[in-house]
């Protein structure tokens, strides 16, 4: 912690924040978040003042402020560049991006802010925009599919935008969907926004307004087809809907011209003239003359959508996530109504039990049984809590973010039904800090629900009441563990506690607490509406219903998908996802994130089911599926997860705190080619020790990625002991060189950040091995496949 550089910290702000937020210990995280929002970091003077005016001690405050990644203790630059290092971003080269950003900002080792104090670079855990990997966020703006070469342009673009558009914060215009008008539906999940959909929507709005077109744009939730974002649907009142994928700002005009007409004859005339002029001035050099629409019934889109069964993702891409009326018009809150008006709490639990629904957070505990336990738990005064675990921390997973962003009402409805069934009148949405839009949408949706009487006092006139709060996480993977999550809401470090007692008996503030994951709650309305038996009829015997997956990595069609349990991994990867890129080989799929493991291609016919997945050494987890191809190194991949886990360990137990560190060190040694075969044995041995000797789920599952990688890809580990990296990924073990296909175009020399290639036009280039930093820039830019990587 940086000690008091007397920066004239205005402590009255701190006092105001405290008086607004509250003084008890449980307010610590919100207070710190607000203080940081103001100062951009946590000045020590401010922290000491907080201790003086609240019930929070210095020890408690320091413990918490240094626990969560979100909190900074040093002054930062004007803008923050966060490079996502989630799983999908890692396999798509996040390391190269961070290096490129650091080079561009001329940062020395150990520095993270440039000399002009303009930018601070951070590594982020995972933004959950995995299909757009690698992803970079500058302040609030997300950039997807970033390349090392794009970095200078990206930063420049950001600054120019900033200059043009200083802190524009205009309220969202309330769209009215007039019958007869053409509706242009644009997905505005945070992935889509990162893919440019906000810009596309703005362009549509502007073009429509400028030309007085007979159309309105409509924000819709995630369509799931993240691989082809921005996704636009033109829904006329008479015509069949038309779909466009990968829409660009430049396409807007073309699409509008094709489908829309102006409201007045005069405008129409003007437009015709303008069109003519544009044809002359518009540069069509590298863009096709027309954006091509697609049909959902054929081709890749059909393969993507057809095998899916959408229960949790019902009405995807059709409804405005925040339009409560629309949700209700499509049958929303009917299940709640049925429950509170026509069913007894016990009957609701019975239906959930019959449905066979198991917790979608990863462990697969039967939901109905959990509810019943909480219901039967005795509590003084009857006070119990309900929590929605939206701390989706697994890098490579974004199901919960999408659900919270796109289907907030469904999640709220499911949670409300649960609260009714258990007998709970207060609860929390715990949403991780990296998901601002999810938090915003839930907050807005909660307000709408209260207004409409489906939440709050006397819900739907039934006499049942429920008050829901939101709680913003502060960056800690371990807070996905229920006891750590509870500690976090209570204003403590997110350190797990021994169970039993389970939260069902003794949870938040010592009261019985029901915690389920987002997807679990989102499955409930369908079950209540259609009956437990109907749900149990979907999926497999032991794992009923559907499962939502975030499909990303080296797959052609990534996105948010929902399939019946029992679907095979191959059907998901090769069918829905369209397999890996042509010329590459599908190697494995990482399932379950840092707690899961790699299921090799040979086992891809395994049906997705809690027990089946567990039998491979991986776990179902919350639903992140990252596809790997033959360019992904299994040693590096295991190292990646261990590094993540090591940073995220709460530091309490010996095996997790020190054991995972020692495992990581062995993996680092192997990646450098300095390991031996006995190191591999030692790694496995340590992995088994950490598994059996850890307190919480994080430690117990932390070795899974390593153990499965060794189990299925041992030969790769052995190759590393011979200084070979078969996937050609480990920097210390590979060499870049130029082959005879070189046409002497000098592009590589221009791209090389370390002057390892001298520009000699029309001559075969050479890589100076001494200077080469293995950043992959030359290979990425070479137009003639003349760069060889050898090991």
């Amino acid at each position: 912690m940086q000690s008091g550089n007397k920066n004239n910290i205005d402590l009255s702000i701190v006092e105001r924040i405290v008086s607004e937020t509250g003084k008890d210990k449980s307010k610590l995280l919100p207070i710190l978040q607000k203080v940081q929002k103001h100062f951009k970091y946590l000045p020590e003077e401010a922290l000491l003042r907080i201790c003086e005016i609240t019930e929070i001690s210095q020890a408690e405050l320091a413990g918490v402020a240094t626990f969560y990644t979100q909190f900074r203790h040093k002054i930062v630059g004007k803008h923050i560049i966060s490079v996502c290092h989630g799983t999908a971003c890692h396999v798509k080269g996040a390391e190269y991006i961070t290096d490129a950003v650091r080079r561009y900002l001329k940062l020395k080792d150990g520095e993270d802010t440039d000399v002009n104090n303009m930018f601070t670079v951070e590594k982020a855990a995972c933004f959950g925009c995995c299909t757009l990997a690698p992803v970079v966020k500058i302040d609030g703006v997300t950039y997807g599919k970033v390349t090392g070469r794009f970095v200078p342009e990206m930063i420049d673009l950001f600054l120019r935008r900033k200059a043009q558009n200083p802190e524009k914060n205009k309220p969202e215009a309330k769209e009215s969907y007039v019958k007869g008008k053409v509706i242009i539906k644009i997905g505005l999940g945070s992935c889509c926004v990162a893919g440019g959909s906000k810009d596309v929507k703005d362009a549509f709005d502007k073009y429509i307004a400028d030309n007085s077109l007979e159309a309105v744009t409509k924000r819709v939730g995630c369509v799931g087809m993240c691989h082809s974002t921005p996704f636009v649907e033109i829904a006329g009142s008479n015509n069949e809907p038309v779909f466009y994928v990968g829409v660009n700002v430049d396409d807007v005009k073309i699409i509008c011209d094709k489908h829309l007409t102006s409201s007045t004859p005069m405008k129409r005339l003007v437009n015709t003239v303008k069109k003519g002029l544009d044809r002359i001035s518009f540069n069509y050099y590298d863009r096709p003359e027309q954006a091509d629409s697609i049909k959902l019934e054929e081709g890749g889109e059909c393969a993507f959508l057809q095998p899916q069964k959408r229960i949790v993702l019902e009405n995807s891409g059709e409804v405005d996530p925040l339009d409560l009326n629309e949700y209700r018009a499509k049958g929303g809150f009917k299940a709640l109504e049925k429950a509170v008006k026509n069913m007894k709490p016990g009957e609701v639990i019975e239906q959930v039990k019959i449905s066979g629904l198991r917790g979608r957070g990863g462990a697969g505990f039967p939901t109905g049984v959990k509810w019943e336990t909480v219901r039967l738990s005795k509590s003084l005064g009857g006070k119990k809590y309900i929590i929605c675990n939206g701390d989706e921390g697994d890098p490579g997973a974004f199901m919960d973010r999408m659900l919270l962003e796109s289907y907030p009402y469904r999640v709220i409805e499911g949670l409300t039904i649960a609260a009714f069934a258990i007998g709970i009148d207060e609860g929390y949405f715990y949403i991780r800090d990296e998901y601002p839009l999810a938090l915003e949408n839930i907050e807005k949706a909660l307000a709408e629900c209260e207004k409409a009487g489906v939440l709050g006092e006397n819900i739907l006139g039934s006499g049942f009441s429920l008050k829901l709060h939101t709680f913003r996480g502060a960056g800690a993977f371990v807070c996905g563990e229920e006891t750590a999550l509870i500690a976090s809401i209570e204003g403590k470090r997110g350190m797990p506690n021994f169970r039993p007692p389970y939260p069902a008996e003794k949870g938040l503030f010592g009261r019985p607490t029901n915690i389920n994951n987002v997807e679990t709650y989102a499955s409930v309305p369908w079950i209540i509406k259609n009956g437990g038996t109907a749900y149990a009829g979907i999926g497999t015997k032991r794992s009923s219903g559907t499962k939502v997956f975030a499909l990303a990595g080296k797959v052609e069609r990534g996105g948010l998908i929902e399939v019946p349990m029992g679907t095979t991994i191959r059907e998901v990867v090769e069918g829905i996802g369209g397999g890996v890129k042509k010329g590459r080989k599908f190697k494995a799929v990482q399932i379950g994130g840092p707690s899961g493991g790699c299921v090799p291609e040979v086992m891809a016919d395994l049906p997705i089911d809690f027990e089946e997945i567990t039998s491979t050494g991986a776990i179902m987890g919350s639903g992140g599926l990252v596809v790997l191809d033959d360019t992904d190194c299994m040693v590096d991949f295991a190292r990646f997860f261990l590094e993540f886990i090591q940073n995220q360990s709460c530091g309490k137990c010996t095996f997790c705190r020190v054991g995972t560190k020692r495992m990581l060190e062995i993996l680092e040694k192997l990646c450098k080619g300095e390991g031996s075969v006995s190191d591999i044995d030692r790694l496995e041995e340590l992995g088994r020790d950490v598994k059996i000797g850890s307190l919480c789920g994080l430690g117990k599952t932390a070795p899974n990625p390593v153990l499965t990688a060794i189990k299925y890809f041992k030969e790769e580990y052995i190759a590393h002991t011979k200084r070979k990296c078969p996937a050609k990924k480990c920097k210390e073990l590979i060499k870049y060189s130029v082959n005879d296909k070189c046409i002497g175009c000098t592009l590589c020399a221009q791209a090389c950040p370390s002057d390892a290639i001298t520009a000699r036009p029309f001559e075969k280039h050479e890589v100076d091995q001494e200077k080469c930093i293995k950043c992959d820039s030359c290979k990425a830019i070479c137009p003639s496949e003349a760069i060889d990587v050898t090991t």
Partner: protein
Amino acid sequence: MSQLKINGKTYGFKEGSTLLECAKENGISIPTMCFLKETGALTSCFICVVEVEGKTNLIPACAAKAEDGMVVVTDSNKVKEARKKALELLLSDHTGDCLGPCHLGCPAHINIPKFIEELRRGDNKAAITTIKKSVALPAVLGRVCPEICEKVCRRKEKDSAVAICHLKRYAADLDLASGAPYLPFVEKSTGKKTAVIGGGAAGLTAAYFLRQFGHDVTIFEKNEKLGGGLRYGMKAERLSEKVLDKEIAQVLKIGITVRVKTEIGRDIRLKELLESFDAVFFASGWNNEVFDMFKKEGLAADPAGPKINRATHETNIKGVFAGEKTTLAVRASAIGHFAATAINNYLKGLSLEYEKRPFSVKMGKVSKEELEILSKGASESKRLLRSIVDNVIVKENPGEERVPFLRGETFEESKRCLKCACRKEKTCLLKKYSIEYGAKTEAYKGAKRGFSQDVKKTGIVYESGKCIMCGICVKISNKNKEISGFTYIYRGFNTRIDVPFDKKIDKVMEKTAEECVAKCPTGALAKM
């Protein structure tokens, strides 16, 4: 009453009690470092793990409540192995020296830091007691020892080593000159008879310790006088006979029989000895003559030395022990002491193996910054190379002409010690259990915390590198509402326990510092 099974036996238990409590009540010991009744289960150290039937993971006994019908195993290999691993992982990130490098470096393992501190306090009786726990002839060694301990003295990295050897000599000389020189406690007679062959440094030392163990001892010396190489192989100016005689006499005072001018193989045969002695120790030095004698008496040997089990000093003949070849008096002393320990174990029917090298975590080479921290409490003065009395340079005047330290000089020199050794070496639970479970200090190598030290004016030291993150002090200071008490800082491997906001403990920890020292399971929190 509810019942559970521990290690195959059924016990009743009180509702709500933990497995640790249950086991304790029934006399089954489970190790724990982070559990204290007043702080409750913190489940951090994980050495209290046990097997519970039906669970794949090991369960921390401190937190798990006993349940009716539970089947618990506390002593399986799986459990022991896991405890050992937990200890080894903790040791791999434990920065400090249990024993000072000098203590470990001394072949005879004299507790050097301890006697230096005793000398600093002016307590010579205590100092000589400490020294004579490991060696029999300190006044002699103080003159002839090649100062092996000083070669590893950490003070050397700063300027020059503490004059350990000279300090030891000071303590020994002062003791011999006193009216009542130190005499060790001799245990009740065991009735066992031991013979020591050779009255040099090894033989005298072995006899000295064997006698203390309560055995009868007879030294067989072929020469006219005792002393061996010390008498017959040493220049007079290095070691005067006066000192040697005085110190040998002091050794013999505890009741050791001596038969001079008696040579084994010539005057008496080993076979005869074995008829009247329960154990024989050959401390006869090594040369061709001895080699011939060994062969003649049927003892395995080769020209390089006797063939013995190096861990126990046993020869090929039962009850006969021998020391390896050495030319250094201090090493011979060590051999004598170790062999005496092994022989004592043999005579008492215990395992013959003894700890040749005491357990100790080692800090190894320290960085400049760490050295700076370590040096804080020590005196800045240079090593006293020359005597203040007559300006004779020690190095140029070896042997008896070496000018001994004066009282004041001893005090000055002893203050130069950096006190590397752990202050809670005797009570540290990490050390205790590591020895018990055979945990190795360097089983895992990797990044380690640096050495740091924070001293409170009241004499309390916090060395965070020795903290095992048990959380007891956090709980205590929180419970007692310290304004700024101990807390966990950071996450992952970087997790530390410290006082908040980079404060010094002197400014905080008003109420609970003493209690935390008492409850800290390691040397992280200790008294100066």
